[in-house]
């Protein structure tokens, strides 16, 4: 058990989680950066956001994804970027869950802004899978944050050398 915990918090695993999560966010950002009107349309389909907020969100969110993803993959500002990525993931999960609960099928708009011809049940099924995928990514973020906290604790408990 202790060995499993040590492995789960190991720098080896943390670096891989950072790179994977960062890369996913960078890849997800590109189609939205290439087509902000398409992303605004995808957001409008969720029927959750006020009309005045859709355009600014469609312009800012892809850049936030790209910058946080790049910094995380490079191991810079890890705690801050992971917290932002977690916040975004929670927002995605909530948005999809609300629409799933009210039986309103939407295209996720996560990795593409193109609409795909799908039936209502296919869309609803996809939404369930996307929620599961986002929960998986949230687990990666949890690993990074927990490992960061453990590292900070360890550093705080390490006695400072006298310099002799």
């Amino acid at each position, binding site marked *: 058990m202790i060995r499993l915990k040590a492995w789960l918090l190991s720098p080896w695993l943390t670096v891989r989680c950072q790179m994977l999560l960062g890369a996913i966010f960078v890849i997800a950002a590109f189609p939205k950066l290439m087509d*902000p009107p398409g992303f605004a349309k995808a957001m409008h389909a969720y029927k959750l956001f006020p009309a005045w907020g859709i355009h600014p969100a469609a312009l800012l969110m892809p850049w936030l994804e790209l910058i946080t993803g790049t910094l995380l993959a490079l191991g810079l500002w890890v705690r801050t970027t992971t917290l932002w990525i977690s916040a975004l993931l929670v927002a995605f999960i909530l948005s999809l869950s609300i629409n799933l609960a009210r039986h309103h099928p939407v295209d996720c708009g996560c990795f593409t802004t193109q609409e795909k011809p799908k039936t209502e049940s296919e869309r609803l099924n996809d939404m369930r899978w996307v929620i599961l995928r986002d929960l998986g990514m949230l687990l990666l973020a949890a690993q990074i944050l927990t490992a960061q906290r453990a590292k900070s604790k360890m550093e705080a408990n390490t006695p400072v050398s006298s310099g002799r």
Partner: protein
Amino acid sequence: MRLPTSIPAQTAALLAITGLCALLANAVAGPRRHLAWFATPMTAPPIAPLIAEPISATIPAAIPTPAQPTPALPTPAQFPKAPTLKPTPSEVPTPQTPSQPVREIASAEAWAVFQAGAPFLDARRSADFEAGHIKGAFNLSVWESTLDEHLVEFEAKTNRPPEAPLVLYCSGGGCEDSHLLASRLFKMGYRNLLIYRDGYPDWQANGRPVAAGAK
């Protein structure tokens, strides 16, 4: 230069960089990629949903109708699931009802109105329009910043009275772009807006005249 180390300072820097990048990218974006930072909220006007039974009548294209107050009708989100009409040779178009300045139409009526020469407005993205559209349609993509410019062009080209019928379409199914375009045209004073509910996929499936490329 010292980099920020605390979470609030890093957050502030992150948001500042994000905002700056978005501003710059949007400023240099071409017309298809450009998105206005603050758009006028588009809410659908009262729309009469599609009625299943066909009504025998004449083609509505030539009948200008005065605008009249409309009773409260469901918004697109509350539409009842109306069965789709299958066009048959014996079917004739439904008439323009004066009390319905914006209403949904089925496949057969769309075809009849097309034959009568009413303009078709394509609310889909310009890339979709270029890939294929109803022959003679105008592209008025509601999500692109070229909408205003295209609306002016359309009005100058057609110069139609507000009571003359206009057919709006998008991709059918759950697509709401034609409803959003109807909202815009309704605000501009158009009072005979026919939303082709099943849109371009249905038109194509019926083997009706299509064209490709930008207009």
